[in-house]
């Protein structure tokens, strides 16, 4: 009985303990349930996103770059079909073997193979390795023939940048290449970048990246844990970049480039009313197509080491003393400020009796001297003595105001080119600030003939000439077509305006900044005087570019030569009086020429600069003359084309 009682007690203990355990179990199961609730109901969205991130992988498809065309819609930068070889890494068992086979098939050298290995290290296992982005047809067909032996190899028909006018345009259009880390920081590239996409490195390609780059497409695939594609879920098509329409006429550009062949220099041509840059040649030049797939060492060295510096865009990044091409502006300034009566006579007595100021002698370029000169003759024959005196009377600060107003000392094309130079228009303030020295009158004197501190780019000189030639109106130079401006109206307005009443607005002559398409002159007669003097310089006997003239009024142009010294001329030099050919290349003068054409009813301005070409009249003016004929011959075509286009718009 005792035993039985104990047993009952034991049974009770077991049952009680069991219930305690059961209660604990229920509690723990409730814990699990609430955890499930948290994961699957409260945090469901978070985990759904994570799950999609797991299973969905996006592949970006590269967009085609927008094309670049010239004024006549001729394609300057296109996308050409290229043959490429890609390697799908996760389809390869033995990378070494595959690379070895490919190496033998398409003939890669040791260096290229090493590069591929390096490239592969940076990729993820499901990525694609681009073996070559530009195979020859022969290589491509070989690959296709042996494709069954090459695991993971994928011959791809793709597009890549092609510049049909190669060397003729590189300084304007620029070129593309692989994106650098700095490139990737730019928002327009960052937003649209796809690995392998080429981006603009220079010129229009670089500054118009936003227009040209386009938008990538997205292919969404479901992938498994090892990254293998299972199925395509989604495809958003890529969008090609926009077309960029330049104002360049490729025919003229080509010809300008041809004229510069073998020389170092620049030719710029501009529409004097619209500000459209028709040509902007720089020589020597190089082939942008070589950069698309990465330039090889040899070619790069050749470009780098060329003493004529092909990499420099001389039209906007080359700085030159304007020399005598500056004289029309100096004359204009003197007239506008009323410093000098154009009939004032000054005698140029040659090297034996130079201009003297505080004991320093200033020589005219002409050994024998020009004799008695009035202003028109002084411009026409480019007499330095007259300009020394005129500059002295004018003063550097007034000159600098007019020079700046007509486009010197500032970027012509805004921020379109990151290498465009501002040049330098000196004044007394500038010298005190920059050099912490006071201005000497002697510096004013040589400034009057475009020497000394003054530095200009060829495009600035072209703009300056254009703005004098159009009657003294401010224009907006540009190289990308601007459809927002109705040029017909502007041309008509400027041509009809030509008002000759003097402006009496206060500070008018102190004001540098003028609104676009507004007059910059004080008196119309002053502009006309300068234009007439430039006509004389080209079309009258004793004019400095008389030899390059056209008698046919259709082609007749007016211009001003310039010869810019690259070093100080010593008395010994004057005595020797060597021909250009006899002087060491580096020490020869730069030859310059600015012109506008046709003289009656002008439409185009240009500047020509031949580095170390000698005198402007011999080296630069003849080129301008040839080019002017071509420009005028094409003018009608341009006019018709542009009009029909604006009508359409």
């Amino acid at each position, binding site marked *: 009985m005792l035993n039985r009682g*104990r*047993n009952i*007690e*034991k*049974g009770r*203990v*077991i*049952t009680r*303990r*069991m219930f305690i*355990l*059961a209660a604990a*179990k229920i509690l*723990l*199961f409730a*814990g*699990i*349930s609430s*955890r*499930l*609730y948290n*994961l*699957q*109901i409260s*945090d*469901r969205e*978070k*985990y*759904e996103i*994570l*799950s*999609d991130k*797991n*299973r969905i992988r996006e592949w970006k498809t590269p967009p085609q770059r927008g094309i670049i065309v010239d004024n006549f819609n001729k394609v300057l930068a296109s996308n050409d079909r290229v043959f490429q070889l890609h390697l799908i890494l996760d389809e390869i068992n033995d990378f070494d073997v595959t690379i070895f086979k490919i190496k033998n098939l398409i003939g890669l050298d040791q260096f290229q193979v090493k590069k591929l290995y390096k490239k592969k290290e940076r990729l993820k296992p499901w990525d694609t390795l681009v073996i070559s982005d530009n195979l020859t047809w022969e290589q491509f067909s070989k690959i296709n023939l042996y494709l069954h032996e090459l695991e993971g190899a994928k011959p791809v028909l793709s597009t890549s940048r092609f510049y049909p006018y190669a060397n003729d345009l590189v300084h304007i259009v620029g070129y593309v290449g692989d994106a650098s880390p700095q490139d990737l920081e730019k928002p327009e590239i960052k937003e649209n970048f796809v690995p392998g996409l080429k981006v603009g490195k220079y010129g229009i390609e670089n500054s118009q990246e936003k227009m040209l780059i386009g938008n990538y497409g997205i292919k969404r695939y*479901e*992938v*498994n*844990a*090892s990254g293998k594609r*299972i199925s395509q879920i989604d495809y958003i098509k890529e969008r090609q970049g926009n077309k960029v329409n330049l104002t360049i006429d490729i025919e003229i550009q080509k010809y300008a480039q041809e004229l510069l062949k073998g020389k170092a220099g620049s030719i710029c041509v501009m529409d004097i009313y619209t500000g459209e840059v028709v040509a902007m040649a720089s020589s020597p030049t190089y082939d942008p197509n070589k950069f698309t797939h990465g330039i090889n060492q040899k070619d790069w060295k050749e470009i780098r080491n060329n003493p004529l510096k092909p990499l420099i865009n001389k039209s906007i990044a080359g700085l030159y003393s304007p020399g005598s091409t500056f004289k029309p502006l100096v004359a204009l300034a003197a007239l506008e400020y009323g410093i000098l009566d154009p009939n004032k006579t000054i005698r140029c007595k040659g090297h034996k009796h130079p201009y003297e100021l505080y004991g320093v002698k200033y020589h005219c370029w002409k050994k024998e001297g020009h004799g008695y000169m009035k202003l028109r003759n002084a411009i026409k024959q480019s007499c330095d003595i007259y300009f020394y005196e005129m500059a002295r009377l004018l003063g550097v600060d007034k000159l600098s105001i007019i020079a700046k107003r007509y486009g010197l000392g500032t970027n012509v094309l805004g921020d379109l080119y990151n290498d465009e130079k501002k040049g330098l228009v000196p004044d007394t303030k500038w010298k005190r600030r920059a050099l912490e020295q006071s201005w000497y009158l002697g510096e004013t004197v040589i400034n009057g003939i475009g020497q000394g501190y003054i530095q200009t780019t060829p495009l600035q000189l072209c703009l300056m000439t254009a703005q004098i030639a159009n009657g003294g109106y401010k224009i907006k130079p540009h190289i990308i077509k601007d459809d927002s401006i109705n040029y017909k109206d502007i041309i008509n307005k400027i041509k009809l305006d030509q008002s000759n009443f003097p402006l009496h607005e206060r500070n008018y002559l102190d004001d540098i900044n003028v609104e676009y398409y507004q007059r910059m002159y004080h008196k119309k007669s002053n502009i006309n005087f300068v234009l007439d003097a430039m006509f004389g310089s080209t079309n009258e006997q004793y004019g400095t570019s008389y030899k390059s003239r056209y008698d046919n009024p259709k082609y007749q142009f007016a211009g001003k030569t310039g010869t810019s010294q690259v070093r100080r001329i010593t008395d010994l030099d004057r005595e020797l009086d060597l021909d250009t050919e006899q002087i060491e290349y580096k020490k020869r003068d730069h030859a310059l020429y600015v012109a506008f054409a046709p003289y009656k009813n002008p439409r185009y301005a240009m500047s020509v600069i031949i580095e170390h070409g000698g005198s402007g009249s011999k080296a630069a003016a003849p080129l301008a003359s040839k080019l002017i004929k071509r420009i005028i011959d094409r003018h009608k075509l341009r006019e018709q084309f542009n009009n029909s286009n604006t009508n359409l718009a």
Partner: protein
Amino acid sequence: MLRERIQASNYSFLDKLKSIDYLLILLIIAIGSISVFAIYSTEGGKFSFYTKNHIIRLSVFFSLFLVLSFVRVSTWYKNAYLFYFVGLLLLITVLFFGISASGATRWINLYFLNLQPSELMKIAVIICFARYYHRIQSSDIQSIKFLIQPIILLIIPCYLVIQQPDLGTSILIAGSGIAIIWLAGLNIKYFVYSGLLLLVSLPFAISILKPYQKSRILTFFNPDRDPLGAGYQIIQSKIAIGSGGFFGKGYLKGTQSYLEFLPEKHTDFIFTLFSEEFGFLGSIILLFLYILLIYRIINVGLVSRSFFAKLYCFGFATAIFLYVFVNIAMVLGMLPIVGAPLPIMSYGGSSLLSIMLGLSIVMSCKIYNQEQISVY
């Protein structure tokens, strides 16, 4: 009493059939069927190796369960120690002749099955302890003398299993044993003291853990520590379950599993797959099935007369609970990842065999619930 004893030993076959717990059988069939579908899904909806094997095993072991259910509970009682020692012997055999996989030596090759003795040991410990405490007087239970024996009986297999190494199974074996000691009525203070002792010795215990075990524990506390390494399983499992939502992604549509982000999806992480495809609703239903199963086992204990049957049933119910809880808590990221299969659901012969064996003993307790087992 005598009458009862005679009555108990003379069940007619009809009586036996009548006293079978059909609901329990139904639950086993239900969970078994779910497991077949789940394993079928792990293979991406193809009827191949795992599914085939699982079905064969389920049917073989289920038949075995039915047959063994009719073994007298007194027979189980008599052979309880034998069972334990056979299990121990097998564990020792593993030590010398075991076959290894992924760094652990846990199996004996029996040609038709790679037997994992540690799984059998889970049951063996329960039955052995049930017998031990069946005959101990309630007045003796608190004495140290009678406590030493079961502790030794528990430490030996646990130690052997840890050596394999298999921390999870070892913990589960220990858990089941301790549960029975608890049920037998050992004073609460012992549990409190040993709990405190465990807490104090925890730093020491961690220091002797294998590096991979340590990293698993560290990873448990911070899965993002190494998202592609040790933390990968927890993170991916949570993603799978969480993204399932209320209704799940649909059968055979669990992207996490069929795109192979889930590791061990047919064994330890089968619940993850199930939960991804059937969502919160499915998970709760499955959980409920397990709760019912545990309830039915407890019920058998309640209606059994012998302490052996009671202790066994309650102990086994607790063991099943522990397996389910540890497994699910593990895949939900509530416990560190230790190898612990989900009963019946997970693919694995030994685990299934031991569960079925355990269930057959429960069933025999039910059929022979009036059987009185002599204390001597």
